[in-house]
């Protein structure tokens, strides 16, 4: 806010008895209230379902069968979580798959994106136009699902391997645009020129100068990528049959209609009795809660990096 508006604020609002100064160009308290109610309702609709699922996961299975899903259940119970602790081998296995895919995938993504984006951000790279086009054309045109599927299964033979969950998603043109824009806007040419005069090689400049000052950009891409791998279920739907390689999100799809899947991989012998008394609905919701909790807890802290990436990505050059 500049001096003009500050001084106006003072002259208009320094009336005696009024302690809070108010920007005279602000909306009236009535409109503020109306807007608050509207946005607040929408914001609540965004977090309510998650709270609802948490409550359901702590509901007693019999109460649930009797009363249906309720935000204020009559009887609470920890049975769903107890069940998962006891025979959740499949869940743990899937969690392991998801973690492995997310970590390996994100590291590879960062390597590919930062090297590629750095090279095409440098004006003294003679083939930069060609390689920029190579990346950006993929945003306009793609071969489609089926040829991609055939390449993964019949050229690379990745069916039923962890790599089928990783390789198809480790790069895309959007990441490269964000990263390139980040390099061109935050790394001053002068630094690079002076390093060159001091005799640094291109690799030296990239690893010792550019990467360290681009950490916020790297963090942004890293978070996009982490989220993408954690939430991915489509690749597994296409390429994975082996229950040991199913990630968490895909496990949630498998148990959607059939709870047997979670016990078939269990080391315990599950009798028909146990299968019949399985707290199915609440266990499902408990698994949804466990798969969502890490994101729900972490994203408010990482939000600003996402916002940064989004706003950079939409800057036109």
């Amino acid at each position: 806010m500049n001096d003009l508006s500050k001084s106006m604020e003072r002259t208009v609002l320094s009336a005696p008895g009024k302690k809070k100064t108010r920007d005279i160009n602000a909306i009236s308290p009535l409109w503020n209230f109306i807007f608050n109610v509207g946005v607040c309702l929408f914001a609540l609709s965004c977090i309510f379902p998650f709270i609802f699922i948490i409550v359901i996961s702590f509901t007693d299975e019999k109460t649930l069968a009797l009363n249906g899903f309720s935000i204020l259940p009559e009887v609470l119970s920890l049975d769903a979580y107890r069940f998962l602790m006891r025979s959740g081998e499949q869940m743990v296995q899937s969690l392991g798959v998801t973690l492995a895919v997310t970590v390996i995938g994100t590291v590879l993504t960062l390597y590919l994106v930062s090297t590629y984006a750095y090279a095409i951000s440098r004006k003294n790279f003679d083939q930069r136009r060609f390689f920029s086009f190579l990346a950006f054309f993929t945003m306009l045109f793609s071969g489609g699902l089926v040829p991609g599927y055939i390449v993964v299964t019949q050229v690379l033979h990745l069916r039923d391997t962890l790599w089928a969950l990783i390789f198809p998603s480790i790069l895309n043109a959007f990441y490269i645009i964000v990263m390139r824009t980040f390099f061109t806007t935050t790394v001053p040419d002068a630094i690079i020129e002076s390093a060159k005069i001091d005799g640094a090689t291109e690799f030296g400049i990239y690893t010792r100068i550019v990467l360290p000052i681009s950490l916020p950009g790297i963090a942004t891409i890293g978070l996009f990528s982490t989220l993408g791998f954690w939430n991915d279920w489509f690749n597994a739907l296409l390429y994975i049959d082996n229950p040991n390689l199913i990630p968490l999100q895909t496990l949630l799809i498998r148990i959607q209609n059939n709870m047997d899947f979670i016990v078939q991989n269990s080391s315990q012998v599950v009798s028909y009795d146990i299968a019949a008394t399985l707290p199915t609905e609440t266990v499902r919701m408990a698994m949804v809660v466990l798969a969502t909790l890490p994101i729900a807890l972490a994203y408010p802290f990482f939000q600003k990096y996402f916002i940064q990436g989004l706003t950079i990505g939409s800057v036109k050059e």
Partner: protein
Amino acid sequence: MQGILKKLIKNRAFLLLVLPGAAWFIIFAYLPMFGTIIAFKDFRIHPGGFFESVLKSEWVGFKNFEFLFSTDDAYIITRNTILYNVGLIMLGLVLAVTLAIIMNELLNKRLAKFYQTAMFMPYFLSWVIISYFVFSFLNVEKGVFNQLLVFFGEDPVSWYSETKFWPYFLIFLGLWKNAGYGSVVYLAAIAGIDRSYYEAAMIDGATKWNQIRFITLPMLKPLMIILTVLALGGIFRSDFGLFYQVPRDSGALYPVTNVIDTFVYRGLTIMGDTGMSTATGLYQSVVGLILVLLANYAVRKIEKDYAVF
């Protein structure tokens, strides 16, 4: 020739840097593009590998396309894809800009920050998780909607087989999931507008509404156009999870949930019809490319600076 070689050697450090990424693009983006020629072939797997399979499969011309367009499916999936996307793009734009303007005006900035964080939540969740959220409302015996209907003395509805509700559900969910994401970009753009415009307008006696109409919206126009042109380019693509996972792949709902992407997926995995699925995917890509080029051309004609490329 020697000149080219010299140039390559001069740029060897950069070339080494782009090599892994370029290799990825060639394998995972350009090889499938070459593979689309099987849309014009009767694809058979040959023992000699991918290239031999693609090249040795028999040419059938446009037979795969004829087969696709001879059924009602082609019309239904094209109609669904376009109508849903037009709805989502237009309403999404209005919602994102409205939210951004309102959030920018809220007096309590800390509260505004909280709203923003809450609205961002659905964006971070997968459609699988959201399909469970939806299930807790729509389940026939236990869901919230039917509990409310019964409470008010109405008959419960079998939501997962009643087509008439789903266009509203899907549009709502598509908007709901992306509202936080959409508004952020516009919020940042509003924050970047020079405050002195508003001060000058205020001194001239402009109301808040007039300031929004004559300053904020015109200043946001380039961004709105660019993002909409980009979105129009994707008008033939859909968010697969929204149309496949949220309706729980319910066959009764196919007339209103089947879009090009789900059709191609089912064609590949259930029917195993490689040729027709590839043809559908190619139809999607080619029309999508034409649309984005046309949209960009139109924008360039009207206002050169607003064109994306």
